[in-house]
């Protein structure tokens, strides 16, 4: 029994086993937990708002946005851009 226990512990510290355990953790989080989390009211509301506005919240730079942020007449009406 003691031998089996120490073998399991030794196996858990093997590089490939560690990689498999990490992969399993990622699968559980991304395939089970996160799909469930998006059903939570406040997250679902945020996702809906982003979908309706056609927004890419993960854009790292403006070129990754769904729509280029160009000046619109509405902004020109509100501001004096070049006095």
């Amino acid at each position, binding site marked *: 029994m003691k031998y089996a226990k120490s073998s399991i512990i030794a196996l858990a510290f093997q*590089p*490939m086993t*560690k*990689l498999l355990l*990490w*992969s399993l953790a*990622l699968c559980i989080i*991304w*395939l089970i937990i*996160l*799909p469930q*989390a*998006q059903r939570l009211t406040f*997250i679902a509301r*945020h*996702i809906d*708002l*982003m979908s309706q*506005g056609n*927004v*890419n*919240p*993960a*854009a*790292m*730079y*403006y*070129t*990754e*946005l769904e*729509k*280029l*942020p*160009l*000046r*619109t007449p*509405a*902004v020109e*009406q*509100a*501001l*004096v*851009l*070049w*006095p």
Partner: protein
Amino acid sequence: MLIGGLLIFLSLCVTFSARPTEDAGNRKKFEKGWPNPLAKTIDKPQTWKELPTEGLKDKKGKSVALPILLGMGWVVLVGCFGALLMGRNVFAFLPGGILLALLGCLAYFLASQRVINDLNLEYPLWALLVGLIIGNTVGEMNWLKPALVGEYFIKTGLVVFGAEVLFSRLLELGLPGLLTSWVVTPVVLITSYCFGVYFLKISSKSLCMVVSADMSVCGVSAAIATAAACKAKKEELSLAIGLSLFFTVIMMVAMPWFIQQVGMDPIVGGAWLGGTIDATGAVVAAGEALGKQGGEVAATVKMIQNSMIGLIAFAVAVYWAGWIDRSESKQNISLGYEVWRRFPKFIIGFFSASLVCSLLFTQGAEHSLWVDGATLGFTSRLRGWLFCVGFICMGIQTNFRELAPIFSSGRPLILYVVGQILNLILSLAMAALTFGWLFRK
């Protein structure tokens, strides 16, 4: 630098060869620039909710599996060219290069999950995580080592990125936009850097610079550019990105709520969001809550800040080469020569790409659509893949033990928080002054 320049040139040529014959200068018709045939050869996984396979189809239901596969092919190709230029064995690079491209794809899939995507947890974070898992489990395998050229991928990505950094965008919101970006951003950057170095006495000046730049300019992209300019360690860049993304999520939720609670003018609120929240996507997401005008101002102010990356990276590189690195060596050589000798040459490529594309962009409506087509259709996507693979290499090679003493002191966190508080106060003051009073009709 050479490969990055060639890729931009290729994209510009291909876009020009496929230019539209009618309405070539019509921005309404070609909102994202002229169609670029190279766009069909590169893409990334799309957002998915339940199963990753949903990420293989775009919003119109069209399959993007082939462009994703070809995107990985571009990464391997760029890596092979790099190996050739560096005089290394291409066949030794190939197996590791293919694995890195596959891991890059995995990182993109992790980042594309809807909850993760909508919380602005960008792909560099997941690329680092994937790399860290590999590095801390199976380690650097011998056959993978020749492909672990993260610095090369990041630097090539930065040169390609230069084409997207258009100085002409700086004028998009006139004088109020310029004042908000050009006064507040450099003041916060310099003040927080000095605060970190002289008050908190953080031993690594490059860490202070990277944290200050990602907090004051525009998050991850600024962190990557300045980290390369000041030769920061990969652990320092990883730390700065982690800090930035953590606080971005909080600010993205808290700031629009605060603006609405105090009844702030949406245009002033938008300018404040654009000037303070690090990540571009998070600014647009937060701006949605302020309505059309507020959202537009927020996104445009952020875009102006985005356009400053080139100048800031260049200035940081000059400062580092001429003062920081120089002070650690003999000082009997002329400053100009020393700056040139130590200057990271790829920054010249990055800056030149930015300058050339900015000049081209300002030549007229057709030219601006040409540049947009070349960048949005190809170079922007390729840059994403190169950064992603670069971060995987960084994750594999990262040794957080080196940073543990600095991080456990809590000083980088204090630097970020204090710098961000200063940024919040100055940006609000400038937004209220320019967007709320001086330039308001």
